[in-house]
């Protein structure tokens, strides 16, 4: 027979988490939803969404956000996976590699953006290096307003540098959870390194990959500081528009409408990941 305390203990232990989530996630989320459908004079309206859709930056912001997502997330997952497998192979000095890879984690995204601006700007490190090497005579305008590919590449490089380590940390944790027995069994059956990776490591890494994908996608939807620093006004993104409408244009209703769109997109992406990479009952129990 369980005592009363035992029955309530799990709930008591959950309480701090629930309080945290309610205070800092649920309440602001509900407030944002309300704000997005409220007129300035009070009362419910869809005007804020109409205004958002009619805005000059809206379609560009959609396109750019999705484009960045499609380019950045797969690139980072592949890069992080390669780095994680490399570190997990425990070659000599693998610890140093981990520390070097993790450095960008400590840098704020705006600082990272400014850092890369110093690289790509007209008289930046990239141009001066290329010039002194004799590759180019005149500085190349990588971030010129009519050089969309240049701006996009700069952002993808900067974002990959900044946030790949986040994915890396999750994948390394996942790799370390895989019991050694599996590798021994694979070796016994004569699997080479490649087959071992494809048939043993990747399937067992799926739960970690799923978390990494979800977290990275959420962050990709929130990206804007790096974009602001490198592209200025040239490349509106959804999260950036939410910020601009709140901080610069001083209209929290339209800002909330953008936030709701970002929330919706994020939710759709997460459900998709859970479905596609979903863990079957048996795997969970194992």
């Amino acid at each position: 027979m369980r005592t009363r305390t035992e029955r309530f203990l799990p709930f008591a232990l959950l309480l701090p988490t629930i309080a945290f989530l309610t205070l800092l996630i649920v309440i602001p989320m509900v407030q944002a939803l309300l704000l997005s459908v409220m007129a300035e004079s009070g009362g419910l309206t869809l005007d804020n969404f109409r205004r958002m859709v009619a805005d000059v930056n809206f379609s560009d912001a959609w396109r750019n956000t999705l484009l960045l997502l499609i380019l950045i997330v797969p690139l980072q997952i592949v890069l992080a996976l390669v780095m994680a497998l490399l570190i997990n192979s425990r070659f000599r000095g693998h610890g140093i590699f981990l520390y070097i890879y993790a450095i960008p984690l400590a840098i704020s995204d705006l600082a990272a953006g400014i850092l890369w601006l110093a690289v790509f700007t007209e008289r930046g490190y990239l141009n001066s290096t290329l010039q002194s090497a004799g590759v180019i005579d005149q500085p190349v305008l990588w971030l010129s307003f009519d050089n969309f590919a240049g701006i996009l590449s700069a952002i993808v490089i900067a974002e990959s540098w900044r946030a790949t380590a986040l994915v890396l940390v999750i994948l390394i944790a996942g790799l370390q959870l895989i019991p050694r027995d599996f590798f021994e069994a694979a070796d016994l059956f004569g699997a080479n390194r490649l087959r071992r990776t494809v048939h043993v490591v990747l399937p067992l890494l799926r739960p970690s990959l799923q978390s990494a994908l979800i977290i990275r996608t959420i962050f990709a939807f929130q990206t804007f500081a790096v974009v602001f620093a490198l592209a200025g006004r040239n490349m509106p993104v959804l999260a950036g528009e939410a910020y601009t409408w709140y901080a610069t244009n001083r209209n929290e209703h339209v800002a909330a409408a953008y936030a709701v769109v970002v929330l919706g997109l994020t939710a759709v992406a997460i459900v998709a990941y859970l479905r596609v990479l979903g863990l079957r009952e048996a795997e969970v129990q194992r």
Partner: protein
Amino acid sequence: MRGMSARAFAFAAAATILVTACSTTGTPSGGGTTAGDQGNPFVFASTQFSPVTEQENMRKKILAAYQGASVDFVTDQEPVILDRISAEAKSGAAGQIGLAGLENGQFAALVAAGAFDDITKIADKHKDQKIPQDMLTLGKFGGNAQVYIPWMQATYFMVASKQALQYLPTGADVNALTYQQTIAWAKNIFDKTGQKKFGFPLATDGLIHRLIQGYFYPSYTGGLVTTYKSADAATMWNDMKELWKYSNPQSTTYARLQEPLQSGDIWLGIDHVARLIDVLKAKPDDFVAVPAPAGPKGRYYMSVVIGLGIPKTSPNKGGAEALIDYLLKPETQIITLRENSFFPVVDVKMPSDLNKGLQLEADAVAKQANSKDAKVVPLPVGLGSKGGEFNKAITDTFVRIVVKNEAVQTVLNEQAAIIQKTMNDGNIKCWGPDGTSTGACQVK
């Protein structure tokens, strides 16, 4: 055990660094004498001096000789400061902010909410300091109460690299340029060097909207809102498109023109005094500072007035008054100019040992104001919380016409409709170059 304590130490050190780095407030200034006599300590909140060096100058140099109640100078971006003042006003109880230092237009947002005391008496006390009457009138927002007293002022002007002077079109006087001559100048540089050397402050935190509001529009059309889609306006936008052809295509990343000027990415540009001072101080011999160009309707320029207001919820009104008195002293006004490049509003004798870069600025400001065809406009007045949307409508017009090359009149008609809606929603009356109106200002 040793490992643990080392870790704890590292953590404490990291936390200390973080806290110090993140804090926007420094050591409280003043309070050197017995704080009890001076009343409660209070916060001096401002939207100005947000760069770290300017904050430090304010706390350590400008406020150094201040002797009153303990003051904590806090600065942040406009929405943060305005939200904090309005939150204290809404709460009604005694707040922390004792004094606010804001732009004229930023006060307007809070005046409607009745957030500030009437400080007519303080203004009267400073009568013999000869603060310009039109600035004091601006601080009344059309009523009788003195909402703020002017503290310092700034403006925008043009800076040109001396390398560009050889390409000046024939017959053009660099101190009395027109927009046509400026375009010809930029074109000439492009023709001779193959480089696009004009710069616009077009980044998301650049001040392009101020240039359009206070310089391009009034100089070409004699108005702003009323003339927004006029034929004169179309002429202006076509000229801007022409100028854009010779402008650095990386302009969309320029927040402050001093950086591309200093690196040589651009040779010409118009920007705010505080966003040009670094290059003028660093290389005073390589640049000239000249008045902004003139258009068909005159040489319009914008005057930025920063004022001091006492919130109704101020925890120490006597202390706030003492701080106003201190900030308006001629000595303090000169230190403010020297350290943070904002110009005095009171009658002062300019010192002869001014920094070379500052001297360049002071001369340009005087030349601009004293030009034969000079006409002054204030920052937009009375927009209140609509200010952001108004600025956006203006900047979007620039981006659509000039950067994205959309049809001029179509864009003007569409953006004028947005501007009209903003005017109507806020019932905002005409100001400055548009004259006055009884109801909301109307686009003609």
